[in-house]
């Protein structure tokens, strides 16, 4: 067992070597700098690729969002302003069109609700599944594979499938509700339920991932913790609630990162489920609005500014993660 602290120390210190030796052992410095130069072939090519395509594209997109670009010809980079952002927050008719533009509040709200609900329920369901699978070691591999399987399917299949599931007459969801004595309910176009329905479908698709991560997390907790809690008199539920679940923080964080990435794919699902980028106000998210503005209305610059907002939101979720990882020396 390696103590994480030692690892941290090593991490911190090895990078410190070059500094420590400063003037005293110049040859040592060159040895180490030789290391960092020799390591460049490893990180530099990927870094350049990422820098060019990911960050280059993002920056370009940010600049674009400051123009009035409407899809044809070359964007006028000479005339940059924040008008699109003003419109995005306040609505109204911007200078580059005759039509009023919807602000992003509704879509932003839906996006946040969807992301948060998706992430929380995925984690909760994943945890529950993990706890269940953890009890039954025998078929564990099969279970794991099955729970992961939805992840491999394309939205063409899963969107159609969920339309079936939510069918008013024959959908399994309504049949199940019927079994509990609830009348069939309209789900797909029900303004109160459709965002939930979308979230639920996404949860179905990705909760297996959370399960896998949690299962590994559970396995990493020494069995003596379970036993100590039992000897201490905790019931099974209390044991999980007070002793086990709090220890799954790392697993939660690492699952969350990937789930956020997945939640950005909600667009594809909405697109398939509602046959286009117009899922209706109750399920409209920033991604659909962005594509609608850019590709539907040719409001490219405006679309870019929505994309920037979306990126900043994703970053807002992730920045604390990166920061805390950094603080804990996990980076």
């Amino acid at each position, binding site marked *: 067992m390696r103590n994480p602290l030692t690892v941290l120390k090593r991490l911190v210190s090895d990078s410190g070597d070059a500094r420590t030796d400063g003037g005293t052992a110049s040859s040592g410095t060159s040895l180490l700098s030789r290391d960092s130069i020799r390591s460049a072939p490893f990180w530099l090519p990927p870094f350049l690729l990422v820098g060019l395509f990911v960050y280059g594209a993002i920056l370009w997109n940010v600049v674009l969002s400051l123009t009035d670009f409407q899809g044809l010809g070359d964007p006028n980079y000479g005339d940059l302003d924040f008008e699109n952002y003003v419109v995005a927050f306040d609505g109204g008719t911007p200078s580059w069109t005759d039509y009023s533009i919807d602000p992003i509040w509704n879509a932003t709200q839906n996006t946040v609700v969807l992301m948060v609900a998706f992430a929380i329920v995925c984690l909760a369901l994943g945890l529950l599944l993990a706890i269940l699978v953890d009890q039954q070691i025998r078929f564990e591999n099969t279970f794991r594979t099955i729970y992961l399987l939805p992840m491999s399917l394309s939205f063409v299949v899963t969107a159609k499938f969920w339309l079936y599931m939510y069918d008013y007459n024959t959908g399994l969801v309504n049949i199940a509700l019927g079994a509990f004595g609830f009348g069939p309910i309209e789900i797909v176009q029900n303004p109160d339920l459709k965002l939930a329905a979308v979230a639920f479908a996404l949860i179905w698709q990705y909760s297996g991932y959370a399960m896998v991560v949690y299962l590994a997390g559970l396995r990493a907790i020494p069995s003596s913790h379970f*036993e*100590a809690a039992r*000897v201490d008199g*905790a019931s099974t539920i209390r044991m999980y609630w007070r002793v086990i679940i709090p220890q799954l923080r790392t697993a939660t964080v690492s699952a969350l990162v990937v789930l956020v990435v997945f939640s950005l794919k909600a667009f594809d699902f909405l697109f398939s489920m509602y046959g286009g980028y117009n899922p209706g106000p109750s399920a409209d998210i920033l991604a659909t609005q962005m594509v609608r503005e850019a590709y539907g209305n040719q409001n490219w610059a405006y679309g870019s500014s929505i994309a920037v907002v979306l990126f900043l939101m994703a970053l807002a979720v992730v920045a604390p993660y990166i920061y805390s990882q950094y603080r804990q020396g996990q980076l």
Partner: protein
Amino acid sequence: MAELTLDSITKVFTEDDGNEIVAVDDVDFEIADGEFLVLVGPSGCGKSTTLRMVAGLETITEGEIRLGGRRINDKPPAERNIAMVFQSYALYPHMTVKQNMSFGLEESTDMSDDEIDEIVTDTAEMMGIANLLDRKPDDLSGGQQQRVALGRAIVRDPEAFLMDEPLSNLDAKLRATMRTELQRLQEDLGVTTVYVTHDQTEAMTMGDRIAVLDDGILQQVGTPLECYHTPNNYFVAGFIGEPSMNFFELDVEGDALVGEHFEYPISDQLRGAVSGSDSVTLGIRPEDVEFRADAMPTEPTDFACTVDVVEPTGDANNVYLTFDDDNSDEPRTFIVTVSGMDRVESGDKVVARFPESAIHLFDEFSGEALKNRSLEDVESVDISI
């Protein structure tokens, strides 16, 4: 506080493929109220399993466990009023020391928060960890964690403590300190305690009695010195004591026990012991071999030897000897411990004497002890400057 009885306890694990593993086989013993019993044995012999059955963490395949006279086989762990200390301490890493210590009381009693607080604070003071109450386990040293784990067990004021190698994660110095501390604590509290270890020193020094397990079967229960000096069998003799007892296989031939490199005379006293056996194992502890430099054997129990290696440990020297009669390529060595003040060098010619009073004899096949040291011998030695 109560006495703990294990009555013909057996534990059989059934593996996935249907194989049955008998982890604990018909084990019987009784631990008096307030007694400190150490359970020792090699890895996999069933120590942990036994302990876990007592704690209620494993079901009992056969037999009965009684605590204070009441059968507890079917009680869930929480209702047994037993506390357990784990090798890994099993402190909850996300809770502070205080929360760790309170947890059991919160879960298993309906004390008010204030009461719990008081008990925890008192116990922490007694354990000298009052200043750590707000720290998380990860911020504690090994010894401190150990103390917290103990504190957590004590807080609950259980009828019995079970400890599964609680000191094995500590380094040598700390282990020595904690050993005495734990012992003293147990004496003060007077709680019936079962303590699992495979550390020789702990086994010998801590318990009122030792129970030696091998392969699920109880080999001997007795005081440390009983086990050390009058082992029931070959296994116990070899297991208890570090360095181990030296063993030699000998055949019973007429008036002598005949081995590859030496013959040992069968005196009248010995005659009875070996009468039923064809071959026996002679055992002698390293400190019981008497030892003289530069001399010829003068008695039939003296053997000419050569010093192979000397390992000084400061207060003592472990001297590895070979028999001069041994001409094989890798001559058989045996160990003798002598005082650290004695200067012995590799290559020295010496004479080793195996005093009859000090030797043990075991039946070669059953392993049962035929002759042990007499415990009276031990006690009668005079203490003098």
